[in-house]
């Protein structure tokens, strides 16, 4: 009987009581969770203080310093630790600056998708019926088109820019939130506390705000963390295809795309931005997995 109460996150509740220590203890218990959080914090730090951290101007072209290998490779220059690209720009500085756009696009589009998805999921799940039917057919339609394809088409139409990218990724991602939240609402609706509220005569909007919304927040946080990770990859992929962030704005996908032609001779151009993406995404996944373990002992997969 006791195990039954392990529904979504009794832990989050406790933290509200100021049990920060409990969170910290839970975090330290998980090695991957700690690593994940540290990576994510580090990337945020780098993005914020890019100006101070970058050793060079990332866009400064230096013909004398073209295609320098990393410092530890023969012919490398300690001034350019990770080497330079075909225009002599410092790869390290470019990667440091690239973190900004990755994070901004990743986080902003997930917030956008979350807002649309939560709203539609709540309404669809709570009211059901015809409205639900229509909304779910729309969700089906979006799911039938691969995200990257959909993003490609929209970017073609509206032209690539950071803002369109955010909107595009937000609009293509809302369906997964809508589905998740709707599913949660459907099961919450059958829980007795929601029936209790209805039997008391609590109004619909209060039920949604007080009983449903707070209970879908934890699954939302988990999936959002993982979603920022996949969105960062998606953004890089689009930039790699030349349809994402346009120069002179620096993005990891863009650096990779530039470096692709030089793979045969200068591997570091493509290798390091990819590594940066991998590490960032890894941190997000670790953090997300940990949050899922802590918030949802049922190990639900979305």
């Amino acid at each position, binding site marked *: 009987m006791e195990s039954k109460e392990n529904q979504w996150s009794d832990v989050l509740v406790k933290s509200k009581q100021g049990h920060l220590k409990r969170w910290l203890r839970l975090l330290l218990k998980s090695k991957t969770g700690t690593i994940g959080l540290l990576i994510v914090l580090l990337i945020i730090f780098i993005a914020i203080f890019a100006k101070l951290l970058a050793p060079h101007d990332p866009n400064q072209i230096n013909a004398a310093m073209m295609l320098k290998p990393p410092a530890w490779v023969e012919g490398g220059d300690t001034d350019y630790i990770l080497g330079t690209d075909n225009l002599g720009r410092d790869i390290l500085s470019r990667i440091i600056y690239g973190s900004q756009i990755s994070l901004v696009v990743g986080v902003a589009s997930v917030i956008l998708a979350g807002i649309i998805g939560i709203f539609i999921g709540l309404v669809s799940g709570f009211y059901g019926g015809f409205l639900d039917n229509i909304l779910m057919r729309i969700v089906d*339609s979006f799911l039938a088109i691969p995200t990257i*394809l959909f993003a*490609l*088409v929209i970017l073609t139409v509206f032209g690539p820019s950071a803002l369109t990218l955010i909107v595009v990724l937000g609009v293509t991602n809302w369906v997964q939130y809508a589905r998740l939240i709707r599913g949660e609402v459907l099961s919450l609706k059958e829980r007795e506390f929601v029936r209790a509220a209805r039997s008391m005569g609590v109004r619909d909007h209060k039920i949604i705000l007080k009983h449903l919304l707070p209970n879908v927040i934890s699954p939302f946080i988990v999936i959002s963390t993982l979603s920022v990770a996949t969105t960062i990859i998606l953004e*890089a*992929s689009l930039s790699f295809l*030349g349809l994402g962030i346009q120069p002179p704005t620096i993005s990891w*996908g863009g650096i990779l795309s530039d470096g692709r032609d030089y*793979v045969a001779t200068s591997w570091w151009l493509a290798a390091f931005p*990819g590594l940066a993406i991998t590490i960032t995404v890894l941190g997000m996944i670790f953090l997300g997995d940990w949050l899922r373990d802590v918030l949802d002992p049922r190990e639900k997969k979305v």
Partner: protein
Amino acid sequence: MGKYIMRRLLQIIPVLFIISFIVFCLVYVAGDPVALMLPEDASQEDILQLRESLGLNEPFYIQYFNYMVGLAQLDFGESFRYNTSALPIVLERLPATIELAVAAMIVAIMIAIPLGIWSATKKNSAIDVVATGGAVIWKAMPNFWLGIMLILIFSVMLGWFPVSGRGTWSHLILPAITLGTGIAAEMTRFIRSSMLEIMNQDYVRTARSKGLKEFFVIHKHAFRNALIPVVTITALQTSTVVGGTLITESVFSWPGLGQLLIQAVNTRDMAIVQASVFIIAFIVIAMNLLADILYKLLDPRITFR
């Protein structure tokens, strides 16, 4: 069973409608293809004439109607780049994409199933740590970057496989591994967690209480049950796999739908874009339907309703 499939097919109709509407809106907003279709020094008169003949001066709903009539006849318009109907061009590229996708799925399944079962049954063992760790790292790697690195190592440095193109088996290996291992990462994680969940079920305990050998407990009682969600998820991965081929094709210059599509996007050849989106959506929907039917066939508890 027949009725169930019929009902599901009926459900697909509104979905196709919505997709067509979304695509139409995008094309409508994308605006005038005329500028791209005519030479730069074309006269104002030529432009007007072309617009008239393409029906671009009609109001939104008439255009939508015309477009739907075209769709009903599988007419996605003419590609101005190839000066021919778009559908045959798309269909011509399809086999290459399917070849890649199928090869990748085979790679994924061959890796994910044994790894997923092993790591679940030997939780926290060395195998588990390696498998789950590998899966997370693979999931974190951008697929196109993995492709590039594989080219760097196996084509450029070792010279084992061709850098790009399609034709022989050795052309297929790197792209299939790139895409397949990417899918395998997600699949391994999924199989592991569904195995873990099923190992805690009452009927697994019943099987043990009968004195069954652990091998049968795992492979007969647990895995058969875990297979149900796995099959479903695999079929539902179609969308991801197709999305993945777009990028993998671009990395390996694989002459499939993805390549065609990216060219079309860059040249704003909307007829090709539309046709590709439709074909892909259709494949995804068909696979999802297949997943549903498989799910119901595998699980005797579910009756066709």
